[in-house]
């Protein structure tokens, strides 16, 4: 089974970076991605991420995730086509040769541009976040966040969510099999689909909720809320960090400068 967002042990570029540096990296990438509307900048950024993934020996994992991006991009394009009907029309979603309903839902250049920008943004954010998560040991992440005085509850919530993704995938599969053995067949049509979710989702959610109490007790017993941690196997900023941080600062300044310039003109 494909593992979604799970830490992969390694020693590549991203593994060498301090979790703090990686958090700064994510913040920088997110800000640039959200503020810019230039397709060229976005493509360049995505390429940079791909090159970094390649350098960090994580390219395969990143490419696997692109299936999700393609799926999302189709939805994003459809939404923009429906919501941006003004502009130069290049075609119709429903071809005009179909009688009666043909020629509806015009596809405009503006819609295509917006769709492309959204897709690229989505791809960049997913890739950056994935690079961060699969190269960072959850323990290091918890420690870094603790240093930044973020309460353990929030960090653990995040770590536990990641940890349970594969467990829930597996459990979902088992429940699905158990229901198949009872002659369950996913229904037809929209209502049928919705109804057919219950036999799998109800046991999955009920079992997870039953687990939550024990999980909470375990966290308390280990002293996460109340006790100080022994300083142990600390991650130190290394050479890679010392190069990466000034580099990111330069990129941030350059971007801020050009952004302000564009804004002023």
């Amino acid at each position: 089974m494909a593992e979604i967002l799970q830490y992969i042990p390694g020693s590549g570029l991203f593994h060498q970076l301090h979790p703090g540096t990686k958090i700064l990296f994510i913040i920088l990438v997110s800000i640039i991605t959200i503020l810019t509307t230039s397709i060229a900048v976005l493509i360049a950024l995505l390429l940079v991420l791909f090159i970094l993934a390649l350098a960090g020996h994580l390219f395969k994992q990143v490419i696997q995730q692109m299936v999700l991006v393609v799926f999302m991009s189709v939805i994003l394009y459809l939404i923009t086509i429906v919501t941006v009907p003004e502009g130069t029309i290049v075609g119709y979603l429903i071809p005009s040769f179909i009688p009666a309903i043909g020629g509806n839902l015009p596809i405009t250049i503006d819609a295509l541009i917006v769709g492309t920008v959204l897709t690229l943004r989505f791809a960049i954010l997913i890739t950056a976040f994935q690079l961060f998560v699969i190269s960072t040991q959850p323990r290091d992440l918890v420690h870094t966040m603790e240093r930044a005085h973020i309460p353990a509850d929030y960090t653990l919530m995040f770590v536990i969510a990641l940890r349970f993704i594969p467990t829930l995938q597996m459990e979902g599969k088992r429940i699905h099999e158990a229901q198949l053995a009872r002659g369950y067949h996913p229904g037809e049509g929209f209502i049928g689909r919705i109804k057919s979710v219950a036999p799998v989702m109800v046991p999955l959610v009920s079992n997870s909720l039953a687990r939550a109490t024990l999980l909470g007790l375990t966290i308390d017993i280990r002293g996460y809320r109340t006790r100080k941690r022994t300083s142990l196997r600390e991650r130190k900023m290394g050479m890679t960090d010392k190069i990466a941080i000034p580099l990111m600062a330069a990129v941030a300044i350059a971007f801020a400068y050009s952004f302000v310039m564009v804004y002023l003109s």
Partner: protein
Amino acid sequence: MITLESVSYSYPRTGREAVSDLTLDLARGECVMICGHSGSGKTTLCLAAAGILEHEYGGKKAGRIVVAGKDVRDYRDLSDISSNVGILFDDPDSQLIFTTVEEEILSALERRGFSAEEVEERLARVLEITQLTSLKDRPPHALSGGQKQRVVLATTLALGTDILILDEPTSELDEQGTENIVSLLKDLKAQGKTILLVEHKYRKMADLVDRLVILEDGKIRNEGIPATVLEDEAARRILIPDFSGIRNGCVKKGGATPVIHTEGLTFSYGEGDALSEVSLDIYPGEFVAIVGENGSGKTTLVKHFIGLLRPGKGTVMVDGKNASTAPVATLAHSVGLVFQNPDHMFFADSVFDEVAFGVDNLGIPDREKVVSNALSSVRLSEARDLYPRWLSRGERQRLAIACVLAMQPAVLVLDEPTTGLDGSESREIIEILKQLQEKGHTIIMITHSREIAEECAARVVRMEHGRIISDICRGEGE
């Protein structure tokens, strides 16, 4: 080391006492084993003794609990108590927070005020005694149930507390795994640790246990040294399952067509063969046990009978249908598969609706009668309007059987049907299976307990590394 004085407790929003008037005293170095039916209050007793009820739960409390010479109310919080008491809950998955075995154990150690060197040293030692060193970089989802239990035990032992409270530490383990844990616990006891143990496998633990406590409806039914407790017939049946009179003779085949026929069945999940060259014929009306250690291919084999897995090589015929190609829904008319964990199937609001789900899916007529019959076969007629998840583990296991039974399959396959059940509950399940066999069903039971297999089934098929290594049919007949 642990003293309970007239402890009673009711969970919030329930009128009923989960445990009532419990008085119990554990001396240093003593191992006390708690037994009883599912739902008799064993887990609640553990939570009480660990001070968890006092600090984390609402509900009605009475009595006094003293742990390591101090009233539990006088401890600051759970992490304070846990410096003296190591507790292990029964569901390993909910005690694994991190993504590798090593991180998990470190997380238990690094907030204890130990020095960095001491943390590293304890980590190495506990990995060694729990035989986890080679698994230290594995994520939890890549571990088997038994390995997860070992990791959770390691996090508990790492702290080196004098008191251990262990709630079913071997439920997911096979015979070999259980023996390893028992010998580990013996060592710990020899070091002077006090152990409160909830378990069903008394026969495996007899050497370890100093005193037995049998709970019934939240009260102590028996308490004393094993020899005394075992004198009581009912207590004995809880501790040591008695399957006498269950096993029938071998079924006469006499030229009958097998209801399940596999030939050269080979299957792989990716790396290595999970099943290789399995050829097996099972005849109508047989009671067959498939035994083997965890990972020997038992579950993989039976999933082929209902089309959840399709053979890589070889053939599987079920009731005259080709199970390599027939849809699962078609095969479900012939084979009913009851999975190990009943909680993987319950979603309806009442026991009746739960059973009716399969009946409706297959379009079986006379729904009301079919469901009622299935419920009465598993002795759950009274529970028909209850919410399935409120039932005890033993009742849920029986409900799972009813759900599949109501679909009227010729063959019933059960994966570890006695997990988490005491001796008399196990006997009840097996009795139900025997009655179904007498009504003409073919019964196939997967178990890793050699005792249960040999005492209950006329035919025992043993598997190892994806192969059948022996197939013995005993008693009259052929």
